[in-house]
């Protein structure tokens, strides 16, 4: 009963994750074999399959222009999720949980984007963002050729435009997680705080928020993981170039693009792996500790 699923998980998930660490040390196009001979630094002929040590990492950090922008964009992604999408989702959940009439309708509407694929979201937002015909430019009067704003094309703003799309979805996701967390809060505690004269904000901050701590950690992990995974929206918009570089998109373009650089792509993958092990460890630790505590 265990053999098939465990083998599948090892062969297709953990195997590749470990192999990428090994491949990241080679200079390989994917064609021909690997060999243990060291690459000749500055050699005239590309020696395919040679052992390159940490040169792929060195090259990524020093001689690969999209690398640092991608790191910055991933950080901006995380920042927007932490400071905008997550608090908004939490606020939605708190309002719905406070017993407003029609809460079911709000929940259905706000969660709707989570059902749609990110590829689809990227497509439908273009009707808002389109420079000539889009609703936003028409409403703010920037739809003549003299003053167009290219929301998705201009590299100084397109990351923020895409982040609005991403937050539109993420807030609904966070909302549902918090709604589940809030159901577990004892309402008599909140009532007691209110009777003692606490304001709505004080009640939330001193009573509700601490009692949903386990959910806060889950949401924190989801937030970090989702900002590392971000890919579909930038890929559908412009394949993750020109202002929309992300680590995930760089990895992908190194294998499905015209240039097949397996070693280099793996090195970028390992960078993403190491970063994502942080939130994963937090999540597992939390799960483990909570289980032991029972």
């Amino acid at each position, binding site marked *: *009963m*265990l053999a*098939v*699923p*465990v083998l*599948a*998980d090892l062969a*297709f*998930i*953990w195997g*590749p*994750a470990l192999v*990428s660490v090994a*491949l990241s040390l080679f200079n390989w196009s*994917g064609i021909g074999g690997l060999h243990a001979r060291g690459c000749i630094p500055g050699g005239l002929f590309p020696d395919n399959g040679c052992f390159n040590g940490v040169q792929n990492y060195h090259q990524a950090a020093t001689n690969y222009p999209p690398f640092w922008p991608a790191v910055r964009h991933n950080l901006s992604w995380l920042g927007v999720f932490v400071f905008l999408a997550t608090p908004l989702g939490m606020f*939605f959940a708190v309002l*719905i949980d406070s017993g*407003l009439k029609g809460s079911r309708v709000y929940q259905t*509407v*706000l*969660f*709707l*984007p989570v*059902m*749609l*694929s*990110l*590829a689809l*979201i990227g*497509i*439908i937002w*273009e*009707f808002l963002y*389109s420079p*000539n*015909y*889009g*609703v936003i430019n*028409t409403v703010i009067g920037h739809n003549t050729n003299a003053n167009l704003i290219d929301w998705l094309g201009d590299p100084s703003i397109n990351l923020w435009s895409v982040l609005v799309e991403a937050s539109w979805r993420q807030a*609904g996701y966070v909302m*549902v*997680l918090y709604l*589940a967390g809030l159901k577990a809060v004892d309402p008599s505690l909140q009532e007691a705080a209110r009777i003692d004269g606490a304001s709505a904000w004080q009640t939330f901050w001193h009573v509700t928020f601490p009692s949903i701590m386990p*959910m806060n950690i889950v949401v924190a992990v989801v937030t970090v993981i989702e900002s590392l*995974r971000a*890919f*579909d929206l930038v*890929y*559908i918009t412009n394949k993750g170039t020109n202002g929309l570089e992300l680590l*995930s998109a760089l*990895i992908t373009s*190194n*294998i499905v693009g015209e240039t097949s650089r397996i070693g280099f792509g*793996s090195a970028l*993958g*390992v960078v*993403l792996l190491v970063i*994502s092990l942080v939130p*994963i460890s937090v999540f597992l630790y939390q*799960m483990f500790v909570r289980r032991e505590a029972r």
Partner: protein
Amino acid sequence: MRRTAWRTGAYAFMIVACLAWLVPVLLALYVSFRPNAETSQYGYASLPHHLTFRNYTDAWAQSDMLRFFGNSVLITVPAVILTLLLASMVAFVVTRVSIKVNLALLLLFTAGNLLPQQVIITPLYRLYLLIPLPGFLSPSGYLFDSYTGLIVINVAFQTGFCVFVLSNYMRTIPGEMYEAAEVDGAGLWARYWRLTLPLCRPALAALATLLTTWIYNDFFWAITLISTGGKRPVTSALANLQGQFVSNQNLIAAAAMIVAVPTLVVYLLLQRQFIAGLTLGSTKG
């Protein structure tokens, strides 16, 4: 008095937020009913002169949509069934059979599901080009560019989350039931198939809803591991259509709406299941 003001504010905020949330979807729906000639003259934010189903009939006929939907079904249905079957087996062993490696197994599966897909794609892509398959499973002769390959990775990737959710769920089944079954002579398989699975029906239903949506919505595995455009499932085929009909965005809007229909139907009918699946894993742990 302050409380009333606060509630009024809360209602106003929620109503404004909901309206704002609906704008992108309703706009795409509106554009999909308008002729391209009209919106290229007046923009999307204009009153309609004509409303038409033409974009829908054109999108359906010109894009081979039926075939892409067929691909999605061929990939999603086996992947969901296999994932639930494998994940429930692992969860059963982890919670009900005492072996030393239980926690390690649970960690292995849960952590595997949390990895960003791009971490493993480079070696996976090479691996898929190395593993041969018989012709009836893959016309390409390899896992790469085959439905089988796409099913395999979706199953391997989603199993982790399902193991996590199902093991939490199975832990709530009282141990006495298993002791009684054992006394009655039920073997390991009977305890799994006849006792555990029926009791897990609510969790399995919730996960099935969630998995169907996720696998149907998958974009990344399909664009990297399927190279033949005609074999792609409908979500990733939509990206190709966008390039193909770049001069007729209204047709794209109609195609996007058609592709959204299955997920919207699932959502409206099974919303409770979907949300339950999403939150089961995070609340009971």
